[in-house]
């Protein structure tokens, strides 16, 4: 059978649909920032930014850029009415203290036990940089990862054990890929919402790990 992978925008849209009304959410830099453009209009969702924003709004019009109002990716943003500013220690207390409902992170790899690797490729000559990734990974009530299912070489990014340096241990609850949504549970990986035309067997084949169907009999 043939199937079409979800585009990045479709992945973002799929994930955004699962964010509940009133949720406090941090969208990691990179791919997860796309989610902001797809938040359901009928829900109030509060976006947090590590550098001290709650109630972050969309990018400003080109003429309205304020160089004092940036997101964690250092891009200009806006503040919604009802938003608030705070300093970095308060912001990371909010993260580490478990107050965010959902944090969406990009990743190089996620393991079947919920480990995440997203900060370093481990190459010896790479300039290391971690930012807030490790804080976010341990902090939110729900860590969701958004990433392509396979590397460019066709290897699964969902793995038995991460080979890249870890960001957090046993923290990821759900992965949104361009092929499916996969929950990481105590009873193993549970796959659902596969792209049309893709069967569970085929997904299991490319993933290389046992996958359970969400509603098996």
């Amino acid at each position, binding site marked *: 059978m043939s199937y079409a992978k979800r585009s990045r925008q479709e992945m973002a849209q799929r994930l955004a649909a699962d964010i509940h*009304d*009133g949720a*406090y959410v941090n969208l990691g830099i990179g791919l997860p920032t796309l989610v902001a453009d797809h938040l359901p209009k009928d829900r*109030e969702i*509060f976006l*947090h930014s590590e550098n001290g924003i*709650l*109630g972050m709004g969309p990018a400003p019009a080109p003429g309205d850029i304020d160089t004092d109002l940036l997101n964690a990716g250092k891009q200009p943003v806006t*503040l919604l*009415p*009802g*938003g*608030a*500013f*705070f300093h970095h220690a308060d912001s*990371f*207390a*909010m*993260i*580490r*203290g*478990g*107050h*965010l409902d959902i944090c969406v992170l990009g990743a190089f790899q996620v393991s079947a036990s919920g480990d995440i690797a997203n900060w370093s490729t481990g190459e010896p000559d790479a300039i290391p940089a971690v930012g807030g990734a490790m804080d976010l990974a*341990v*902090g939110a009530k729900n860590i969701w990862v958004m990433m392509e299912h396979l590397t460019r070489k066709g290897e699964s990014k969902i793995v038995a054990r991460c080979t890249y340096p870890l960001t957090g241990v046993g923290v990821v609850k759900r992965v949104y890929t361009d092929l499916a949504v996969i929950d990481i549970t105590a009873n193993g990986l549970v796959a659902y919402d596969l792209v049309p035309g893709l069967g569970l067997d085929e997904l299991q084949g490319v993933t290389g790990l046992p996958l359970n169907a969400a509603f098996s009999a």
Partner: protein
Amino acid sequence: MIDKIQGSLAAALAGVQDGSTVMVGGFGDAGLPNELVDALIVQGARDLVVVNNNAGQGESGVAALLASGHVRKIICSFPRNVDSQVFDELYRSGKLELELVPQGTLVERIRAAGAGIGAFYTPTAFGTELAKGKETRRINGRDYVLEHPLYADYALIKAEAADRWGNLVYRKTARNFGPVMATAAKCAIAQVHRTVALGELDPEAIVTPGIFVARVVKVPRVPAAAIAAGRQ
């Protein structure tokens, strides 16, 4: 639309279970959520652990909560006052458990709970009775005591104004424990004198962002004269 503003004190306190840990803000009369505390007595949850800087004064507020018999234990820094007779009698008769914590350690333990800190070393109380049995450590030539976070199921706090997202601003020294307790509770409940439209609070001056506040209830300000009369 998210609207955390409740229609009544009873609604604000719905669901408080027996055995809950309840933080109560306030220092002196400033910032004490007396109406929420009164409503908690009516709500009826028992076997409570209460966290407050003091242990009630006179016969109302926290003192009335203690007198109701609904409290098993109080965690505070300064229970003794000229008018703490309700606490004094319960404590002396063994009907109320007391955990005495230095004020700065009390609020830092509350902050640690809200900030995801597993434990911390403080110099406060080292070498005193209040550090007895606690782990200590010398760090860079100074002695510290290991202290653990203090979590709550509920925090009852008093602020000046709120919007429907639960953003709070306080007034003068009524701020005290409120902002910190709100971060440490699963469900923080704020009584406020004013509710305002979204966007009306200055984002630079919001002290408690709404993420920390589950419920808000409006309670009109009691004129100072009435407070004085009630104290007599």
